[in-house]
C-alpha cells in the first residue's frame, strides 16, 4: 500500500499555496505509507537555466564549496541552495549534462534526484510530516506537484527507494502497487544500457518509461505501452513540465480519486486527501477508468499522444 497525491493548479492565485496544500494532502495519506515520503514540485523557471536537485547523506561536507568546485569544472557560475539533505544547483541549461557527468568525479556519494527547468524532487525516509518539514515544502510555490507516501513491499526502505522517480527532463513518476515482472525487465533494460540503481520495482517502471521515450515514444505512448509490458498492479501518476498524467492497470485494484474545479485538478489515493481543498464541496469527483491514460496540461488540448517534454 502507498499513498499518492497530486495537485495541478489552473488558478494562478493559488500558486503560492501549492506547497502548503500538497503538504496537507500528503500528511493525510500517512496511514497508507508511513515509511518514507517524497514530493515533486514544479516551481519557478529562469529562462536559459536548469535545476539539478541532488542528495547526500552527509550534506554538511558534501555541499560545502560544491558550487565553487562545479563552477570551476564547468567554467560558468553555479548557485547552490541547500535544503537539509538535498540541494538545488542552478546552472545554465546547456551545461546540465556536463554537470551531471562531473558530479560523480567531485563526490561519488552525491545522488541526482531530478533534473529539469522547473522540477525539484525531495524525498527521504521517515513520516510524511517529518519529511515535508525537513524540506519546508509548505513554503514552496509552484504550478503543480505530486507527492507520495510509501509502504514498502518490494524492496528496502531507503532514500533511493522512495518516490518520486525522475524519468527524464522535468518528468517524474510515482506508483501505488507492485510490479511482478520487474526483475526480468530490469535485466532487459540493463542489457540495453539503461542505468538502474536499486532493486526497487518502481525504479524499473521509471526506467522503462525513460527508455521508451529515448526510443522516440511520447510520454503518452510510453504509458500506453506500459499497460502491455508491465505486469502487476499499478496506479501511476506522472509529472511533466506542463502538467500531470494518470494511468491505472486494467484490474484497477489500487485506488484513485480525481477532483476538478475551475481552480485545480487534484488526485488522491483516497477522497480523504482532497477534503480540505478549497471548493471541494462543489468539485466534480470521479474515479479514473482502468487502462486509460489521462493528462492535464497547461498547454491545450491535453491528449495522451501529446509530446510532453
Amino acid at each position, binding site marked *: 500500500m502507498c499513498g499518492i497525491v497530486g495537485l495541478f493548479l489552473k488558478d494562478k492565485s493559488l500558486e503560492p499555496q501549492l506547497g502548503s496544500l500538497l503538504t496537507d494532502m500528503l500528511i493525510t495519506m500517512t496511514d497508507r505509507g508511513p515509511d518514507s515520503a517524497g514530493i515533486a514540485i514544479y516551481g519557478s523557471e529562469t529562462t536559459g537555466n536548469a535545476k539539478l536537485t541532488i542528495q547526500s547523506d552527509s550534506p554538511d561536507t558534501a555541499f560545502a564549496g560544491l558550487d565553487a568546485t562545479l563552477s570551476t569544472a564547468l567554467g560558468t557560475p553555479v548557485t547552490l541552495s541547500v535544503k537539509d539533505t538535498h540541494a538545488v544547483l542552478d546552472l545554465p541549461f546547456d551545461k546540465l549534462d556536463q554537470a551531471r557527468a562531473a558530479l560523480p568525479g567531485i563526490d561519488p556519494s552525491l545522488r541526482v534526484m531530478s533534473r529539469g527547468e522547473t522540477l525539484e524532487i525531495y524525498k527521504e525516509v521517515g513520516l510524511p510530516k517529518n519529511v515535508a518539514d525537513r524540506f519546508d515544502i509548505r513554503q514552496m510555490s509552484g504550478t503543480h506537484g505530486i507527492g507520495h507516501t510509501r509502504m514498502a513491499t518490494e524492496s528496502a526502505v531507503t532514500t533511493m527507494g522512495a518516490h518520486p522517480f525522475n524519468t527524464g527532463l522535468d518528468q517524474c513518476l510515482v506508483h501505488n502497487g507492485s510490479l511482478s515482472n520487474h526483475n526480468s525487465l530490469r535485466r532487459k533494460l540493463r542489457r540495453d544500457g539503461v542505468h538502474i540503481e536499486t532493486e526497487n520495482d518502481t525504479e524499473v517502471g521509471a526506467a522503462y518509461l525513460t527508455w521508451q521515450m529515448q526510443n522516440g515514444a511520447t510520454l503518452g505512448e510510453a504509458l500506453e505501452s506500459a499497460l502491455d509490458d508491465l505486469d502487476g498492479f499499478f496506479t501511476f501518476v506522472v509529472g511533466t513540465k506542463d502538467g500531470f498524467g494518470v494511468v491505472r492497470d486494467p*484490474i*484497477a*485494484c489500487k*485506488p484513485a*480519486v480525481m477532483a476538478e474545479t475551475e481552480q485545480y485538478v487534484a488526485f488522491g489515493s*483516497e*477522497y*480523504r*486527501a*482532497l*477534503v480540505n481543498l478549497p471548493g471541494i464541496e462543489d468539485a466534480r*469527483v*470521479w*474515479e479514473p477508468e*482502468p487502462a486509460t491514460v489521462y493528462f492535464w496540461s497547461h498547454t491545450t488540448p491535453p491528449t495522451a499522444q501529446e509530446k510532453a517534454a
Partner: protein
Amino acid sequence: MQEFDLEAEGLRALNSALHAQNNDTNQTAWEILNPKGSHAIAVGLDAPIDVTVKGSTGYYCGGMNQQANIHVAGSVGPGVAENMMSGTVVIDGDASQYAGATGHGGTLVIKGNASSRCGISMKGIDIIVHGNVGHMSAFMAQSGNLVVCGDAGDALGDSIYEARLFVRGSVKSLGADCIEKEMRPEHLAILADLLDRGGVDADPSEFKRYGSARKLYNFNIDNAY
C-alpha cells in the same frame, strides 16, 4: 434526532454510540456530520435505526450492517455495505470498487455509478445501481439480485452461481459462464419490486436478464490447463 460531529468526536466514539443501540432504542434517528472521507463509518450496526451521513465517506461505510437504514448524502469509497446482512444502505452519489461485496441480505441502492467489482461474491443481497457498474461486477455472485439501470463493464458475472443480474443498458462483455437468459413474467415481477425499492422509475421490460450457464458447477477436463 442524535447529531454526531465525526471530526470533533472521532470514529471510535461514533461506532460505539451506534453499537449501543438495541431493538428497543428511543434514539432511532442519527445524523453524522463532517465525515470527510473517513473509513469504517457506521459499521457493524445491529438495531432498527436511521443513520444519515452528511457527506462523502472512505472505505467500508455501512459494512456488516444488520437492520439499520443508512443513507449517505455523498459518495462512498471502496467496500460500501460489505458483507451486509439486512437493512438498507442508500448512496446519493457514486460508489467505489467492490460495493456490496459478499453481502448476505438487505438492500444497497447506489444512485450514481458503481465502479469495478460491484457485488463481488454476493450471497443474497439486493443491489440496485441507478447508473453504470465497472468491470468484473457480480464476479462469483452466489445469490441475490444486481440491477444496473445504466451500462455494465467488462466480464459481467464472471464465474457466477445463482444470482440474477438485470441490466438496462449495454454490457461490455460477459464473464465466463455468464449468459443472457429469458425474461419470464416472474422475473419481471421480481425486477418491478427491486426497481420500486431502489426508487427507480423504469419499465422492467427495458431490462435484460443474465445468469449462470451452470457449466462450471462440475469439473470439466476441457477447462483444465
